């Protein structure tokens, strides 16, 4: 049982031991080689999961749309990713005339690099993490914002006005949705007291006297808004208006073909999977779980979150760009700020450790009661804000109908006069 549970740790220790014994003359070199191997393993994992994810996504979306999906390439269409890869590799690699060669060629590389670097701080099992940064949360968000520059590079390097416009609109969307993402990660960081991802997971397990309650119970509003922002950050449906073929002609990657387009595609899926992993780490408890080995739990949770992504893609229509910006700045950001302030006040008021009561004063409650209080507050803010938004929408709709009625009456009067 112990072997299966700690399988990843045993393998990594074994490989580290081999490398250390080979490079025993220079521990620095041994460190570098170990880290290099870990990076290669992570990137391979990301790339393989990318291949699997494209297939699974097409199948799931097809079933939602009442069709079968790819079933020609191999049994059940399982070799479809291979066929896609062969197609991508053998396509002609064009470069637009008068495009900036360096910028044009570097952009897909930079996106892929940034997408893959997110995996460096994800804990896959207790003790199996690329690097346990003590600013892990901050790092993930910074990497997300760093990949935005690559989109501008792609748009400008294509020497195509549509690509440039698409790039700027995409950047506006991504930069806008970083704000609710950041605001909603803050309650999680506050209740953990640390920005390190392993500490966040430890807080959600039953170690160190923690109650073992995942943070989605504490902050359902944060989880929901983080999920929405995550989908918008990776520009997936329903937020994919900027790469919709029918609209802005595939947006910023219109001039890319072949391997470079494959890198953009890879960047998008790897990013989406990273958001799924990050969501499971922050809100669902990461690798914590009763019976199964930890890495299986993490994969199951990430798969469930990714299934929600695919479900939303197959079900919801694309939203317009002004609807998207409205929702972000007029709904998500105010709700996140109000939620943050309320949660801060409640966490100061209802503390769980006697030492804190002595230091700062407050009401001592058990962690379960604190979770219940925060859950109620979060849910109340969510439902309250939805009701306010619904009432406002109803008022606007009635106003528009009144204007339409007035115009119709004027038309009738003008026609009969």
């Amino acid at each position, binding site marked *: 049982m112990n072997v299966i549970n700690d399988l990843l740790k045993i393998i990594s220790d074994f490989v580290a031991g081999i490398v250390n014994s080979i490079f025993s003359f220079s521990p*620095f070199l041994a460190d570098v080689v170990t880290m290099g191997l870990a990076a290669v393993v992570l990137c391979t994992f990301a790339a393989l999961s990318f291949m699997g994810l494209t297939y699974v996504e097409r199948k799931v979306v097809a079933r939602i749309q009442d069709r079968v999906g790819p079933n020609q390439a191999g049994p059940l269409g399982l070799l479809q990713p291979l066929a896609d890869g062969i197609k991508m590799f053998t396509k002609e690699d064009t470069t637009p005339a008068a495009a900036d060669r360096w*910028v044009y060629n570097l952009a897909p590389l930079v996106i892929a690099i940034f997408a893959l670097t997110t995996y460096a701080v994800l804990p896959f099992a207790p003790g199996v993490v690329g690097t346990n*940064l*003590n*600013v892990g949360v*901050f*790092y993930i*968000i*910074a*990497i*997300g*914002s*760093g990949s*935005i*520059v690559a989109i*501008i*590079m792609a748009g*400008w390097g294509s020497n195509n006005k549509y690509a*440039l416009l698409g790039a*700027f609109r995409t*950047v506006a969307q991504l*930069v806008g949705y*970083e704000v609710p993402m950041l605001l909603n990660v803050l309650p999680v960081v506050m209740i953990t*007291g640390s*920005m390190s991802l392993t500490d966040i997971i430890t807080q959600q397990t039953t170690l160190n006297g923690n109650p073992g309650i995942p943070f989605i119970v504490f902050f359902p509003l944060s989880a929901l808004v983080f999920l929405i922002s995550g989908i918008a950050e990776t520009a997936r449906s329903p937020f994919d208006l900027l790469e919709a073929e029918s609209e802005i002609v595939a947006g910023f990657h219109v001039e890319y073909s072949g391997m470079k387009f494959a890198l953009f595609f890879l960047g998008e899926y790897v990013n989406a999977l990273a958001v799924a992993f990050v969501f499971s780490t922050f809100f669902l408890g990461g690798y914590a779980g009763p019976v199964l080995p930890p890495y299986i739990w993490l994969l199951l949770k990430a798969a469930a979150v990714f299934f929600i992504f695919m479900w939303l893609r197959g079900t919801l229509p694309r939203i317009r760009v002004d609807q998207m910006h409205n929702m972000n700045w007029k709904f998500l950001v105010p709700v996140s700020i109000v939620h943050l302030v309320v949660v801060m006040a409640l966490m100061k008021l209802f503390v769980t450790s006697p030492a804190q009561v002595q230091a700062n004063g407050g009401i001592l409650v058990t962690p379960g009661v604190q979770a219940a209080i925060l859950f109620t507050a979060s849910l109340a803010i969510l439902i309250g804000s939805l009701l306010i938004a619904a009432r406002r929408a109803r008022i606007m709709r009635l106003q528009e109908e009144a204007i339409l009625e007035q115009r119709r009456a004027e038309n009738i009067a003008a026609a009969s006069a």
Partner: protein
Amino acid sequence: MTIQQVLFIVIALAVLGSAVFVVTTRNLFRAALMMIAAFFGIAGLFVLLDAGLFAVAQVLIYIGAISILVIFAVMLTRGMQGMVPRNSQATAAAVTVAIVFAVLLLLFGPLRLTIDVARWPVLSLFAANTSPRDVGGIAWTPPGQVIPPVPDTYIADFGRSLVDLNQYLLPFLLIAFLVDVVLAGAIFIARQRRPAEVAEDRQLQAEEEAEEAEAMRRAGALPGPASLPEGAVASTSDH
């Protein structure tokens, strides 16, 4: 030659090289991209200085926000198509900069001047002890001084210092207020003028120009008779 030294030299050269490219290129978009490279290098320097929080903050704020702002501004002001014209002030600026650099190196670098504070009492404002001492080489400390390690809780301590009444709460609140004002102000400055406002601006401008021409005619600088009677001049500036 430790690994940190090698890393430092590589990153420092990258930063300085990118910065030189930023200030000398005529293509503004390339300048913005090289500025991003410089910011990455500076984030690397912060990592070498054990300030990981600031490295990540640098990437998030400078590369994730300010650089994008600069690129948007370059696009909106047609810098994407045009090139920046060459400037004849460049030599004067270069000379000024060289002088400033020399002064800074004297202050900070290993060069040392020995100045007797007894002869220059004003220097005692900058020095605690007034024995003859080295003025340059600010980075020099007596031998045997150990550099303390960064405490593990430096992020929490930093955060606590920002909300502590006895530490940096006031600057923190002022900065928050500044950011609020900047947010509102930038939106206000850069907003699209509504057509009514544009017409109003033009009308104001026309009236002011007429008034100026009127004043110059009155003073005799422009030919032609003064057209308006005395009493009607002062009534236009009530807006």
